[in-house]
């Protein structure tokens, strides 16, 4: 489940009232026409209104790059350098990582202690599963880990698991701490909340460059990048959880004489457990989403192997490695969720010590047995290659066969869409002067949100222009817009269909989960084979990922409509069609709009990944910044993507709020 990306709700705007004619009374379409005419006229007079002159670009990019170089090399007080501090931090973080490595795959070499044999980890997963969730979860966890062993992914899986089991507690505790702090102090909340918005709207890859400059290459920088990305959802959930604790509970706690510390840890946090666990779930998902990307800065494991497989055109192997990541994600998710919902084990009360500690004892026994087995049979420590299976080659053959057979049908469609639709749309987008865009965004913001929204949106667009990212930003908007339109066209009907029957809903939701956890890099290769390098490939790759929220939120929105509302519609004699369009969709509108919002965010974050196909958009700028260590380029391009996301979010939310008021819902 993906956490709704919520921008702080826009406060009701003051109505703009002028004594003579209110701007709000002029139809938006007329305002737009005037802005377009003025903008075109201006750009005819002055070329700078169409393309901001290169010489006038604020050299922020170079400043940021040099600042980070200075920070990484020379900055410091006296002989103490920032560099020493970051190295010290890195060494500190290296400790838990090293221990996890020893345990999971490396062993302690000087003492010649072997790592945990795979048998013991699979058994351990089963015992853990049984402890928190019973036999079903036990079986499930064990078979997921067994998959890693049987498909020959064990060592890489353990490498990935190492980073994950260190990153998750880190991200959770930092998030918890920041969240509590933000709830207690308004000033902190005012700083932290918009920062989280920005952090989540910025693509993962943009974090990598500054992390590399400050922390170098390897497991530790990968860990840091992962924690930075995975922490905000946790903090957000903590804030939400603490704020929604019913006041009665807090009062009851105070009346029983809790100290503030007791009140927090014994009353409020347990009361908000459900939302907190959603945060933990998000941390786990985001951590695994970073697995592949973190391998660009030196993380070893499944992510790195997956990229190598793709590089060698071994799609099948990459799919198996990707599934390995999904398996780890699912097990961690199910186990943490089950642990949170675990009922108190009343049956165990009054039973023997041995019964109460049966899981720990079982694990101890499993450890001893598996170490003994490993000492006797090598197969029990790491499954040798001849005992593993792979369907990689068969999958490769199948994809090639499909590409070959379907190419003749797909080719004309591809050419038509590319030449007749996409290229003209792209040329049109590139030809629009930036002054027109700033004007239109401002007018729309004023009408939908108010003066604050208008100023914010105009400022963000202007920033993109002034820092010299206009053209890649326009290309990004063009790709994302095309993709989002298609996403909604696909997602809305599927969401409606799923909401009508649980038989459809179950497989659809399972596919959605898989699509989102599956490393998106894999979609790229078949897309290129079928559609060649070009804008359409970019769009289709974005679709595979970004359609999910559109389906999910439509489904959730429709499912949450109260039965009475639908019964009232039926009682009033609405036809099924009327029921859908006049009752259900309008009532579900807030969720559907949230889904649209999410779709845009997902599409924007995919842009950095589709850059691997080849494009000239902001994603490419981010991707290119990494090998050249051009921090300014990476950060500014990342922020430009965030800016586009924020503008879209504000305008859509403004529109949805107006619409809701108009319909008298929500």
């Amino acid at each position, binding site marked *: 489940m993906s956490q709704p990306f919520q921008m702080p709700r826009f406060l009701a705007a003051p109505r703009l009232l002028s004594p003579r004619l209110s701007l709000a009374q002029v139809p938006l379409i007329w305002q737009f026409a005037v802005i377009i005419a003025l903008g075109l006229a201006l750009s005819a007079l002055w070329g700078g209104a169409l393309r901001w002159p290169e010489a006038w670009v604020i050299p922020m990019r170079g400043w940021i790059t040099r600042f980070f170089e200075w920070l990484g090399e020379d900055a410091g007080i006296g002989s103490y350098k920032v560099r020493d501090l970051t190295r010290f931090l890195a060494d500190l973080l290296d400790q838990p990582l090293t221990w996890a490595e020893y345990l999971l795959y490396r062993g302690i070499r000087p003492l010649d202690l072997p790592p945990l044999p795979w048998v013991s980890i699979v058994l351990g997963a089963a015992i853990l599963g049984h402890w928190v969730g019973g036999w079903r979860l036990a079986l499930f966890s064990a078979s997921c880990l067994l998959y890693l062993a049987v498909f020959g992914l064990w060592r890489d899986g353990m490498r990935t698991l190492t980073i994950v089991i260190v990153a998750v507690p880190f991200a959770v505790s930092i998030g918890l701490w920041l969240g509590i702090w933000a709830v207690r102090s308004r000033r902190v909340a005012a700083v932290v909340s918009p920062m989280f918005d920005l952090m989540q709207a910025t693509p993962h890859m943009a974090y990598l460059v500054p992390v590399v400059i400050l922390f170098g*290459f390897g497991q530790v920088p990968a860990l840091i990048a992962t924690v930075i990305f995975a922490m905000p959802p946790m903090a957000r959930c903590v804030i939400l959880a603490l704020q929604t604790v019913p006041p009665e509970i807090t009062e009851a706690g105070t009346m029983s004489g809790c100290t503030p510390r007791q009140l927090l840890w014994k009353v409020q946090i347990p009361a908000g457990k459900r939302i907190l666990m959603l945060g933990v779930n998000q941390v786990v998902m985001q951590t695994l989403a970073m697995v592949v990307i973190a391998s660009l800065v030196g993380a070893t494991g499944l992510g790195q192997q997956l990229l*190598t497989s793709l*590089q060698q055109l071994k799609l099948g192997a990459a799919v198996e490695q990707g599934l390995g990541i999904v398996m780890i994600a699912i097990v961690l998710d199910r186990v943490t969720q089950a642990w949170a919902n675990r009922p108190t084990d009343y049956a165990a009360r009054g039973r023997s010590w041995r019964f109460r500690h049966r899981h720990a004892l079982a694990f101890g026994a499993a450890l001893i047995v598996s170490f003994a087995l490993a000492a006797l049979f090598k197969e029990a420590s790491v499954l040798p290659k001849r005992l593993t299976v792979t369907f990689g080659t068969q999958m490769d053959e199948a994809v090639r066969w499909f590409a070959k057979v379907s190419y003749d049908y797909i080719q004309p469609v591809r*050419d038509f869409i590319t030449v007749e639709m996409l290229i003209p749309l792209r040329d049109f987008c590139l030809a629009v002067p930036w002054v027109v865009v700033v004007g239109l965004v401002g007018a729309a913001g004023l009408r939908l949100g108010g003066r604050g929204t208008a100023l914010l949106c105009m400022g963000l667009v202007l920033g993109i222009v002034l820092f010299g990212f206009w053209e890649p930003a326009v290309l990004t908007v063009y790709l994302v817009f095309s993709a989002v339109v298609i996403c909604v066209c696909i997602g809305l009907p599927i969401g409606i269909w799923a909401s009508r029957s649980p038989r459809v809903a179950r497989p659809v939701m399972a596919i959605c989960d898989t699509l989102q956890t599956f490393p998106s890099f894999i979609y790229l290769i078949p897309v*290129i084979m079928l559609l060649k390098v070009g804008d359409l490939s970019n769009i289709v790759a974005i679709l595979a990922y970004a359609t999910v929220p559109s389906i999910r939120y439509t489904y959730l929105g429709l499912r949450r409509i109260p039965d009475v509302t639908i019964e009232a519609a039926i009682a009033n004699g609405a036809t099924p069609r009327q029921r859908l369009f006049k009752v259900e969709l309008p009532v579900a509108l807030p969720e559907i709009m949230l889904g649209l919002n999410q779709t845009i965010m997902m599409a924007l974050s995919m842009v950095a990944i589709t850059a691997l196909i080849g494009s000239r958009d902001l994603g490419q700028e981010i991707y290119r910044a990494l090998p050249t260590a051009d921090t300014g380029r990476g950060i500014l391009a990342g922020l430009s993507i965030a800016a586009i996301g924020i503008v879209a979010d504000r305008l859509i939310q403004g529109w949805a709020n107006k619409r809701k008021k108009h319909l008298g819902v929500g």
Partner: protein
Amino acid sequence: MNHTRITAIALCAFGAMPALAEVESDEPIIIVQNNWTSQLVLSNVLGQMLESKGYTVEYTPSDSQLQFSALANGDMHVQVEAWEGSMKAAFEKGLEDGMVDAGTHDAVTREEWWIPNYVLEVCPKAGTWEGLNACADIFKTAETSPKGRFLGPPADWGKNYAARIEALNMDFVAINVGQAATLWAELQSAYDREEPIVLFNWTPNFIESKFEGQFVDFPEPEPACFEDKAWGPNPDATGDCGAPSSAWLKKAAWSGMAEEWPGAWSVVEKMNVNNAQIARAALLVDVDGMSQEDAATQWISENQDLVDSWLK
């Protein structure tokens, strides 16, 4: 049970002692890994050689450009394949920052336009740039029409093919991909359908063991090509030439390596492979489907004399 285990551990510990005592430092030697096969196998070959001498070895993946700054400041310690064609600038920058050039392999490398052999059936002279240009038409796609499409490397691999196309007045448009895998996906798809395609490729890599084809010959570059307009086929332009047809392949290392692990440094310095040996390393993985570790073991046993001479 427990007892046996402890005995086993103790035995192992004693067994390992003598080997570990020989080396100068127990600190792990970090070998850089990139994302193409021959590099992965050769770095494993080096790793296994060093491990046989008792050193502790770790592998860290890295980007092909950023690795040199990591080597310069000691975050990583040795790289077995540095290519002139795509890494020259970053390599030289690394040398300035304190990285060490650990010698040149016998192998020569080439990065150039490349066509599958079936293209020669429809365009027999496509092996040279003039001949290829005469059939530019067969390479056109919907976006590039009426010009042909050249599928180029990622924009920052230090090559500007658009400029070369212009300097040579060719009827091609360079479409740059974002990464190498994209090139291979396009090649695989076109190859299965025998569709004409011309794309960026390099040798040695695994492509030559999976696909039959050849490089397109361009005028051999000389310094004058980039300075003197009169030089080359186009009298009015600089840059009217190709990439060097035999470029160097080097090893690179952290400057502190010779001091920290003198024995390992000597192995790195002596290590030297030729084109056939590199292609063989890649083939073991890409065609025979071995893992990189197994391929390295196999490669060592096939080249035992050579390896022994490096280990001496």
